[in-house]
């Protein structure tokens, strides 16, 4: 994307006024998306974006500039802008050399058609139509269906003044189905998605019909739903319902940027029992084709597997370059950014609870009264207080150890450190779910995973008294 001698000159220019560290992050991204709505393929969209972000770290200060101009002139202008923070005058001339380029093999077939090829577009249309048909055949009450398919190819080149020079390719594909069901009680919605760090070969292992039927089933089942309870009850989360509980209840709170600002309830707790002994929590960016997977992170560090909580004991936080440097350690491969226009920060990859030993059905059977959550939507956390919410999109009442009535959507609310101690059963039926994580205005793809598990008490925010 950029010739090595140019990279070296740009890094040298970035340190012309001083500074401890300089980095060039160049990116070339092609995207394609198609949406079927209201029975019609309404829109195919293609996008192309390329540019570079240049970062200069001087003491506690980071200067950052980005440009869509990848010529040497354009890059030098951005380097000049980024270096403005380091006008200490103590810089002098520093020549930066980088090693030979390490090209990571993309975790996908790079000879396969890209998202913008005609063949891919044609394939996309037939996938969308099949999903629409499958959803509408699921029940007469399905009144609206929207199916969307998006794919992207991203090539990155990362170089820094420590001599790093690495290239990586990433392909991502995502398919979503949203349904509306209409009945006497009004409208209800259902949603399902599949997403992988793969190209279109994802559809060799993902059935769009199954996604559509699942989305339709969720909407249909809620037509007969009663309002969710209000107050505290035991909650059983289905395997793969969305490990978002861990993402919100503790994942964000273990990000080193929050830790170093003493803005997390988990600050200073490494080595302490922070969760039930049933909890072993892992963040792993290396799992083949998962949504939060990559070869190198957006600072050029290879993805790795990090154990965060081991049998309830907090073992480590998540680190990026800047925060690990402050602590004199190495990054854990969690420096990510949305695009070249964003500064990297500490982010999760695929975050999951290791499976336990119990039988999923048994866990329900041994719950006299509670709520069974088959699917979670999004969530949100305040890392400082630990208070978090997560929403249900498919849930049922548990009465006498059996699932009885479906429940309307509601948020559940809890406090991270408290909830982690209330996990009293974990099953074997592990599954991952893709999601999009937003932090400080940046969105990145992440995976969440967990097996069926029970929380002894969570506050359910329904309207039933």
């Amino acid at each position, binding site marked *: 994307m950029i010739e090595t001698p140019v990279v070296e000159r740009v890094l040298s220019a970035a340190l012309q006024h001083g500074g401890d560290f300089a980095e060039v992050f160049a990116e070339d991204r092609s995207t394609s998306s198609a949406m079927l709505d209201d029975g019609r393929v309404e829109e195919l*969209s293609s996008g192309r974006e390329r540019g570079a972000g240049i970062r200069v770290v001087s003491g*506690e200060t980071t200067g950052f500039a980005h440009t869509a101009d990848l010529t040497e002139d*354009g890059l030098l202008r951005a380097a000049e802008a980024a270096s403005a923070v380091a006008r200490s005058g103590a810089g002098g001339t520093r020549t930066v050399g980088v090693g030979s380029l390490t090209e990571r093999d993309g975790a996908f077939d790079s000879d396969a058609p890209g998202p913008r090829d005609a063949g891919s577009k044609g394939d996309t249309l037939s996938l969308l139509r099949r999903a629409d048909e499958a959803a509408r055949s699921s029940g007469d009450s399905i009144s609206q269906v929207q199916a969307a398919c998006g794919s992207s190819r991203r090539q990155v080149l990362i170089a820094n003044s420590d001599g790093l020079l690495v290239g990586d390719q990433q392909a991502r594909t995502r398919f979503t189905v949203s349904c*509306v069901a209409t009945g006497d009680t009004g*409208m209800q919605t259902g949603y399902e998605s599949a997403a992988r760090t793969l190209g279109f070969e994802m559809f060799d292992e993902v059935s769009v019909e199954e996604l559509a039927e699942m989305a339709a089933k969720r909407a249909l089942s809620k037509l007969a739903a009663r309002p969710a309870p209000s107050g505290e009850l035991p909650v059983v989360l289905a395997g793969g319902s969305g490990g978002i509980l861990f993402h919100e209840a503790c994942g964000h709170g273990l990000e080193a940027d929050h830790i170093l*600002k003493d803005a997390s309830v988990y600050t200073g707790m490494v080595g302490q029992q922070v969760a039930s002994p049933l909890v072993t929590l892992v963040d792993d960016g290396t799992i083949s084709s998962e949504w939060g997977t990559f070869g190198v992170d957006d600072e050029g560090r290879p993805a790795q597997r990090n154990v965060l909580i081991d049998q309830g004991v907090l073992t480590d936080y998540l680190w990026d370059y800047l925060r690990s440097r402050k602590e004199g350690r190495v990054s854990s491969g969690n420096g990510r950014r949305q695009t070249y226009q964003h500064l990297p920060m500490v982010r999760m990859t695929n975050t999951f609870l290791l499976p336990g030993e119990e039988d999923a059905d048994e866990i329900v059977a041994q719950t006299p009264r509670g709520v069974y959550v088959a699917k979670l939507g*999004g969530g*949100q956390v*305040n890392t400082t207080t630990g208070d978090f919410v997560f929403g249900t999109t498919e849930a049922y009442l548990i009465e006498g150890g059996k699932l009885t009535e479906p429940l309307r959507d509601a948020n559940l609310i809890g406090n991270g450190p408290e909830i982690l101690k209330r996990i009293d059963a974990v099953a074997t039926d592990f599954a991952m779910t893709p999601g999009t994580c937003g932090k400080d205005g940046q969105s990145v793809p992440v995976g969440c995973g967990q097996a069926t598990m029970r929380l002894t008490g969570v506050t359910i925010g*329904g309207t039933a008294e």
Partner: protein
Amino acid sequence: MTTATHAAAPTVGDQGPDHLLAIAERVAGWASPGEEIEVYVARGDETDIRAYAGEVESLTSATSAGIGVRVVADHRLGFAWAGSLDESVLGETLAEARDNATFATPDEHVQLAVPDGVAAVDIELWDEQLASVPTTRKVELALALEAQARRADPRIRQVDHADYGDGSVEMALVSTTGIRSSSRKTSGYISVGVIAGDGDASQTAGGFSVGRGFDGLDPDKATDDAVTRAVRLLGATKGPSGRQTVVFDRRVATMVLSVVSTALSGEAVAKGRSFFAGRIGELVGDPVLTLVDDPTDPRAYGAAAYDAEGLACRRNVLIDGGVLRGFLYDTVSASRSGVASTGSAVRGGFSGTPAPGCRALTLAPGLEGFDENGVLAAVGEGLFVQSMTGVHSGVNPISGDFSVGAEGLMIRDGRLAEPVREITVASTLQRMLQSLAVVGADVEWLPGIAAGQTLAVDDMQISGI
């Protein structure tokens, strides 16, 4: 991948709306017989500064530019975008949009906007001074904000972030159907997040000040807001469950209105995704409810002369005295519904396509004296919600289900009393509109698409202990 060689990008300052119009006109001029083309071109500059612990944590300066092209041929729509205005990219983007159009389902309602004779208001959204403010002054403001927040109250134990940001955006829109518009806009903001501590307990809150430029940003207001809100939550406990009248703080009320606005989209209505569908002329809320979207009001944060298809923005009355009067339409959704566009197209920059949406929603103000204290006094007993979480996971604008996490203070004897946290507030949007008890007269134009006004809603379910 190869990087196209191209001339160095023009430097900041030698472009303007006229330059962008010229680019848009040139691309539109490449239309083939039998096709209609719409070209949207935008460029922007931004500066973002974050202060932490007396130093600049990061300083970002950036320029971005891009193009979005819609092609309609044989009643089929195709779209493509690129994050660049390089000559080579323009033709490639048009070709890609043209190719995408061949895959869409023919639809007689797919059409580009045609001038409708409504004159655009003359509205000044550009602060000439902003460009001449040196970066050093912006840095000083961010540092001063951080220092001020740190010493504002002995209970403030951390300033999580203190940010300054500004931006300027210029855009032009030209179509072969006769649209030719251009506009420009500047914005500035400061934002501070604080952590208050008292023993082991911590609470967080934020404050901000926004404007069209640098002058007028008010660090006192931002700091006071953040500090007051964080400190008054200290000692918060999980509140009691039950039915209560809920008073929404202005910043929370704007979020509620924004969600309601989703259901007022003519597209959502036409596609059966709105609980307002088919209810024009019916009483959908308390008679105190009059809801207007008026982007021609220059005080509104979302004020604009032109909508995202180049039609004049105008004042639209949506609900009048509780009676549903209308929806917001862009060209396609209007055609589908057999009405005219209300000039309400919005789009997410050059990479997005138009869809109907609100820009400047406001409720007809309540009685004089209904500022926050006035509303609290009128309500007497209830819950004051100062912040709300999980809106994206717990509020469904299709079914109307509403369940959010909340923190705030109980209202006793018409005044704020003890703080509460880790509770949920639930109802349905339909019921909330009917149960709207008091609308504040304290209209404050907040960032986003809706004004802030203190609102009181009766009979909401609180879930806590």
